[in-house]
């Protein structure tokens, strides 16, 4: 069965680099050598100082749930109807950026702000792996 959900642009930069890395199991964020800021989502410039010397760095893949929502109705993206209820969250990575993602491998009602999570890739097509997060046990810290 074909994958009906929205696909990112994997052909043009900076998105191609990001999604190729995901395909290899690595989550990339960006760092600026001029002002030492980190940023996400990927851009070809630094949104803090305007530098175009932006560099890719691999994230550790740990963080916590900054905030989240449990989607109950697919008001804009009907292709997600079969996933309902599911959790969309902004996870704050150890590196200091927030990433829009899903919290998986747990009941939606058990997700909380501040919950410790870790990276897991969800391979949804042959070419696409989505970086998602799952609960991290306290002893893993």
């Amino acid at each position, binding site marked *: 069965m074909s994958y009906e959900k929205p696909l990112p642009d994997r052909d043009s930069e900076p998105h191609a680099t990001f999604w190729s890395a995901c395909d290899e199991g690595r989550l990339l964020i960006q760092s600026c050598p001029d002002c030492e800021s980190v940023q996400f989502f990927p851009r070809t410039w630094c949104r803090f100082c305007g530098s175009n010397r932006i560099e890719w760095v691999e994230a550790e893949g740990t963080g916590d749930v900054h*905030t989240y929502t449990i989607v109950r109705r697919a008001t804009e993206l009907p292709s997600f109807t079969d996933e309902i209820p599911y959790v969309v969250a902004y996870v704050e990575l150890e590196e200091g950026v927030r990433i829009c993602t899903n919290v998986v491998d747990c009941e939606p009602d058990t997700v909380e702000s501040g919950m410790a999570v870790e990276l897991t890739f969800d391979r949804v097509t042959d070419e696409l792996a989505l970086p998602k997060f799952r609960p991290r046990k306290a002893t893993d810290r």
Partner: protein
Amino acid sequence: MPLENVVVAGIGETEKSRPSRNNDQPYHDLEEYFWMAADRTLEDAGVGIDDVDGLGVARSSTPTPYRYPMMLAETLGLEDLSWVTASDHCGGQAIPLVVQAAQAVETGVAETVLCLGADTPKHPEKGSGEIFPGDPRGFKRNYQEPFGMQGANAQLAMVQRRHMDQYGTTIEQLGSIYVTQREHATRNPLAYFDEPVGLEEYRTSGMIADPIRLFDCVLPVNAGFGCLLTTPERAAELGVDPVSIAGFGHSHNPEVAERPAFTEMGIEAAGRRAFEMAGLEPDVMDFLQIYDDYPIVELMQLEELGYADRGEGGPFVERTDLSVEGELPLNTGGGQLCVGQAGVGGASFVQLLEAVRQLRGDGGDRQVPNAERGLVTGVGGGQYGKNLTAHSVAILQRGVGA
């Protein structure tokens, strides 16, 4: 006062419509809404089309050709305009558009400027169109939609979740804003909703993106709006009740912090600029017309504009009577949550025009007694990983500026 040679001399607002396959509500296209809004505004001010020498147009989310304001001038029969502009500030648009137009009149570039905003997010065959404009940085397509991020509803749900977790804000507190505005809408013939609802109906209105419920979500409608600005002398000749702009302030892209707070909007700076220009304090406002796409957005504005401390918006709305008869009347015509929001093209006109009505004493059975001045806000610009980012505040007052 910086804008003492300009007043609002007329307003116009169409009925609201949500046409679909399942109803027979009327459908008009964008150009028809602009035409109706212009017609009503000119009639309200008592001026002819030939008196207009300036045109301001709010950019709609319904697609329009490039150089659309010039096309619209042709549609409306406006010739030899000495000033034309377009605004593109997302949901906050009416405020920056009208303020720009006021500056054109103030400086004598134009004498009589017609500002228009309209949008048609609902289509009887195509269903819902775009309420908010596309994806300027590509983050929506590339870094949100693959995860099933359901637009503004999900984004604001995450803002509200954070506010609830951080400050203990409750559904009942947010619901009280909605219930109050819904009652106000019953007194506004131009509002889409005309039946009141109670707190329980709000609470059980259907979960969309937890904790955002159906009645938290702004109501997309098709509509057109207009506002005419001219000099105090010309307004006196026309015999209209003038309303002036005592102060205004903007703050766009307010925050470039490394970890911007979800619960902070950044409208504080826009408010500070507006209050400073007017030489007025927040507590002298007779009413507030606060941009409302979701009750949580109103709550955060009350905090940032000086009505409640940070995080205290919930207890504030709980102890404050926000009704027309109360101590701080809020969105006295029902706000966009109950009147409807016409995409981004008509956004925040509901706030602006209701303020003008109140200050002219045209509020009918929702008139705030002795309304002398009031606050109007416009907000837009949803971004990745943070709150809204385009903010405008204006303080309107009865009569000509001193």
